[in-house]
């Protein structure tokens, strides 16, 4: 798969339209890598001139910051900012709402000012510019519910772009009882992804999966690699893998467009 790096671009004296910030999950996690690839396929189809940092990308520091390690966060941030500013990056797109939030909101006061998009916003723009079309026949009529990632939804009030994309797939979008600003967290945020939960009587991802299952979905759509893992685990816990799929919106679009 052709994924140009900023270094390649620079060598050719080119500046891409947008930097794709892959994020740690999107780079290393087997499930999330599929999302990265699906997104790249869409970028190719829409002829978007993009590049990644590749081995020059490092953790945004989101998990460190939410765990309370402001030192580590700022060191990561400053290193990344140095690289980004070195390449004169202006526009960034990412499939990870945590990276999205951090790059968009927390980097500016440390000297990193960019126009940052979540991939659902970016794709939505491509559609309105007429650069991308979504085939609404492949997934037609499927029952889909969307789980709002906290760091996209409440944290940044992006509720509509994922929904608009889903609707374009021609599917039947149903909302969970808690949705948009009242959505329940999948349980991964605040660095919880990297540790066991405190003792309680249930796992958060199981509760959220139950809420999703109440809508009797065939597909649970996500817009975050961590949510994706959490909901996938929840579905396994509920032994519903045979009936319910968990898919990122980028994957759904790639599938619909037969990429």
């Amino acid at each position, binding site marked *: *798969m052709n994924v140009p*790096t900023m270094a390649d671009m620079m060598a050719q004296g080119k500046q891409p339209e947008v930097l794709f910030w*892959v994020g*740690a999950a*999107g*780079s*290393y996690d087997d499930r999330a*890598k599929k999302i*990265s*690839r699906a997104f*790249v396929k869409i970028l190719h189809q829409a002829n978007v001139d993009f590049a*990644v940092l*590749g*081995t020059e*990308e*490092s*953790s945004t520091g989101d*998990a*460190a910051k*939410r*765990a*309370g*390690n*402001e*030192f*580590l966060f*700022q*060191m*990561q941030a*400053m290193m990344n900012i140095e690289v980004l500013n070195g390449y004169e990056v202006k526009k960034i797109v990412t499939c990870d709402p945590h990276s999205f939030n951090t790059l*968009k*909101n*927390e980097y500016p*006061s*440390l000297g990193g000012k960019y126009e940052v998009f979540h991939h659902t916003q970016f794709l939505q723009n491509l559609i309105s510019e007429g650069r991308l079309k979504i085939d609404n026949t492949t997934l037609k009529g499927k029952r889909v519910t969307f789980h709002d990632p*906290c*760091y996209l939804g*409440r*944290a*940044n*009030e992006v509720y509509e772009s994922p929904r608009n994309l889903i609707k374009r797939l021609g599917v039947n979008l149903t909302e969970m009882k808690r949705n948009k600003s*009242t959505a*329940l*967290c999948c349980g991964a*945020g*605040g*660095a*919880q992804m*990297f*540790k*066991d*939960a*405190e*003792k*309680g*009587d*249930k*796992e*958060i991802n199981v*509760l959220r999966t139950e809420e999703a299952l109440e809508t009797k979905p065939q597909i649970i759509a996500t817009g975050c690699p961590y949510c994706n893992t959490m909901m996938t685990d929840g579905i396994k816990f509920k032994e519903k893998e045979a009936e319910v799929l968990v898919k990122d919106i980028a994957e759904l679009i790639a599938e619909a467009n037969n990429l």
Partner: protein
Amino acid sequence: MQYLPNMFFALALIVGIGFFVMNIRKLFRNIKLGKDVNRTDKKPERLKNMIKIALGQSKMVRRPLSGFLHIIVYVGFVIINIEVLEIIIDGLFGTHRIFQGFLGDGFYGFLIATFEILATLVFVAVTVFWLRRNIANIKRFLSKEMKGWPKNDGNNILYFEMVLMSLFLIMNATDISFQQAGVGNPISQFLTPLFNSFSPEAIHTIERTTWWIHILGILVFLNYLYYSKHLHILLAFPNTYFANLNPKGQFTNLESVTNEVKLMMDPDADPYAMPEEGAEETVPEKFGASDVADLNWVQLLNAYTCTECGRCTSACPANLTGKELSPRKIMMDTRDRLEEVGKNIDANGGTFKDDGKQLLNDYISPEELWACTSCNACVEECPVNIDPLSIIMDMRRYLVMEESAAPQELNMMMTNIENNGAPWQYNQQDRLNWANEE
């Protein structure tokens, strides 16, 4: 002798208001124990928020029933204060229903009629509130942190309002000349017959007594506020005004850390350099918060504003799945500790004497703090824009940066970020491998 009631009234007013002012000054002082944070920007937007959220109660109606009842009580409270104004003038000058002559029977009657209807609605609403709190099994009123004083406090407020509203209606019902005028008594006229068997003197005595208890009750209630979650009726306004306007996901970047990180990353900096001669001796900054004075004043204002409604907790994913964390408890603990610190300062002639306690551990446990997913549900839900998450984060920062007391798995995650640039143990050189798999 003739002026005795007026003088007594004036005295009660002075004592009541004086005590209130004293407590409010204490409140200010305690809030100012917090660190500075700038919340004076974007004034129009702040004003708009205050008008919408505090005055307009826009976030209350997210729960329609309690929201609607709350609005009745709120409107009733605001409007009935006009009546209190009349009572104060009458009390000070020995007049009787001074506004009646002033405004004319028609308009005055209309006003008092409105008050009577509102008072009745408030009574009903408050009764429903009482039933919800005490009879209906509503989870957020039954949490651990709602035992003891918080529960009694909630009920006390309701009893106060029931009594005050009843007194107001009885006072009107036993005011013979007012009833004879026959205006503004849509409710109290039905109470008048209850007193038919009494002599005119007795009725007059009842009227005077209820009048006095009514106004004294209001003064007592005013002073109850400081000790109660009911303080929100005043603080909801500044609290919504000074609330955070940034996106909820945007956490503060600690400036003290920025300076140190810059120094660390600057290859020219000499780590062993002595501070320059004459340079100001910089006090080593404490990272994060372990006690109330480490929090900022908005967080402390938040603590005093919290109405203990528990809407935050009932939206918290950690709480919903049985973990120790309750954002409401975080706010209640912060206020309790702040009160304790304030009393300590009062007892020690204006300075805080170490009492061997702090907010962390003595009130809030690390287990609670580590259960938070930073999802912002509590912040979104709070009807008065309180931010429990910011306190949780500041305390985590203290645990990690001052005490190195993160859970083991998080330490591993952080080591990985430091060494490999990812929370997992992968080699940074493999970061682009995903592109060529499949």
